[in-house]
């Protein structure tokens, strides 16, 4: 697939945006600037960015607990994302969702779910709406290797296949559910092998290669828009950080080695993409570095914006429960 420079540089920009965003999140979390859980997406950027840059603005995605990257990959505003993390009124959810619900509905996000596998039926419903309305948008959902074992995931794949819904099931296989290897919990060699049970295409993709992800998801989207039904795309990737900030450093030696992490860091999605851009003469390393520095400034501004945004007033506690509000009991 021939890609123009604008698209390739957009991919780099969004991967750097997620990387700098997450690095900043880890830094301010460690200084106690916000609490709760937060699940860094570092190392997995190519999955979300490759997939989302294959979509139109009118397409929908749903995410999971590790979803800072998904709204940013789809064009969400990092200022409002950061404000949400800090629990401020200018956050996507006015401070009511936080890290695991970092959803910007204005760019076609259907939410992120802290309960794993739980957003898969929701995304399936958006695809059902496309079919009933006779409109051309598609829906995609990101879930992990762990969530791939949830009944909701299996039920949704079967339903989507039976009804030929325009949805892409994107498994971001980062290989561990907290500390448990997918090799110990998944009944097949690859999650994408399960697609055959649901009579849909299943492809295994190098999840560190943003272009490969983009191409695989593009094929699936084309099929979905043509009314041919769902696909399962598995991006094999790797989580550099531990499962969640706030859990402390899980003794990683017990479930994965430093050597393994070092090996995967050599296959960093940003490194791979920059190397390709430079080697193919599409961009110089200086251009890539300048882009990274530019995005780093954008994230600094986002943090500044978030810090200046007020906390919600007490009245906000009772707002947003219902579209047609009812009295508190």
């Amino acid at each position, binding site marked *: 697939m021939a890609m123009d420079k604008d698209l390739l540089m957009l991919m780099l920009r969004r991967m750097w945006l997620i990387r700098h965003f997450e690095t900043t999140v880890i830094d301010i979390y460690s200084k106690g600037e916000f609490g709760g859980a937060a699940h860094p997406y570092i190392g997995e950027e190519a999955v979300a960015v490759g997939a989302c840059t294959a979509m139109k603005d009118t397409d*929908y995605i*749903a995410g999971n607990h590790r979803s800072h990257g998904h709204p940013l990959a789809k064009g969400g505003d990092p200022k409002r994302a950061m404000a949400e993390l800090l629990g401020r009124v200018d*956050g*996507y*959810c*006015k*401070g*009511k*969702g936080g890290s695991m*619900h970092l*959803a910007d*509905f*204005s760019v076609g996000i*259907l*939410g992120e*779910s*802290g*309960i794993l596998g*739980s*957003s*898969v*039926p*929701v*995304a*399936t*419903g*958006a*695809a*059902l*709406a*496309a*079919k*009933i*309305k006779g409109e051309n*948008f598609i*829906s995609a959902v990101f879930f992990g290797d762990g969530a791939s074992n949830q*009944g*909701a995931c299996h*039920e*949704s794949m*079967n*339903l989507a296949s*039976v*009804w030929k819904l325009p949805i892409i099931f994107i498994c971001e296989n980062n290989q561990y559910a907290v500390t448990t290897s997918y090799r110990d919990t998944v009944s097949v060699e690859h999650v994408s092998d399960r697609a055959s049970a649901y009579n849909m295409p299943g492809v295994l993709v190098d999840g560190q290669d943003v272009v490969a992800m983009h191409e695989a998801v593009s094929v699936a989207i084309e099929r979905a828009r043509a009314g041919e039904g769902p696909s399962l795309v598995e991006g094999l990737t790797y989580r550099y950080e531990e499962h969640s900030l706030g859990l402390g450093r899980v003794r990683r030696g017990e479930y994965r080695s430093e050597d393994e992490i070092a090996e995967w860091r050599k296959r960093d999605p940003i490194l791979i993409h920059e190397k390709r851009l430079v080697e193919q003469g599409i961009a110089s390393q200086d251009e890539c570095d300048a882009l990274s520095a530019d995005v780093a400034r954008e994230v600094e501004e986002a943090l500044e914006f978030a810090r200046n945004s007020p906390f919600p007033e007490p009245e906000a506690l009772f*707002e*947003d*429960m*219902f*579209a*047609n509000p*009812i*009295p508190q*009991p």
Partner: protein
Amino acid sequence: MAEKIFINAINEALVEEMRRDESVFIMGEDIKRSVYGATMGLLDEFGEKRVLDTPLSENAFFGAAVGAAAVGMRPVVETLTSFMWVAMDQLVSQAAKMRYMFGGQVNLPVVYRATMYYGGGSAAHHSDRSYPMFMNMPGLKIVAPSSPADMKGLMKTAIRDDDVVIMFEDGTLFGSRGEVPDNEDLPNGELLIPFGQANTLREGTDATIVAIAGSVPHAVAAADELAAEGVSVEVIDPRTLVPLDKASILASVEKTGRLVIADPAHKVCSAASEIASIVAEEGFWSLQAPIVKVASEQVHIPYSPALEKLVYPTKEKILAAVRSTLA
């Protein structure tokens, strides 16, 4: 005004709303052939796109309703209360929480029609009256109609509401009859009943019975029997449990000083418990006798008719309860 059967009132509401608004569609198990009776004729009139038979995958289609609603549809899901357990994650984690959790960015106009089949030998797995568990979960509107007219008017309101509504349809009432106003006799040409307005079925001065869903006919029968004895009993049907018209209940207790609550749900943390708690907190000085709950016994529903009939509120239990408040 015509007399109609309860289940046909459900059907009328669905047909009227599907004709009125193309974004309304219905899905569930075996609804095309209307196995349970409420979806008769829908497939013929509205076609395969808007009347969908689902796989036995409650998690998938309960959640798909949420996703479809999030992008502009108005799904109606047909199910039985007992199958809601299978879909609890979608009902709680998505349907109930989504709007608030995302700061009001999305409206979710979904109606879950959950039929409560009990009292007919269906045993423990098919006899659930589970509305109190959902009353405990913020973010859901809970409706429990007791007459064909209320069923129709509240169903139409539910489908037009921009929030998640669970209609608890009482299976013991499905064959019951009642007057339903004809559209041409109504000021706006259609029957719409607002949420949060209780219905007073009998006015009285000596005691109040608040009755829910299938307990309402028993409460009315008890009140009529007591009236013949010269005891004046007020019967109130809240109709919607969330929101709850507590003002009407408190005003009635202020008048009568005595309260019996008849509720087909299990008695612990029931709708009756919540109403008793509200009256104890906000109407205590009106009371002249302890509040009495007549709710289902705290046991599972046994199969044998000899045992099952002992579980639920009956006219006799309600009569005894009212008399105890007057003693």
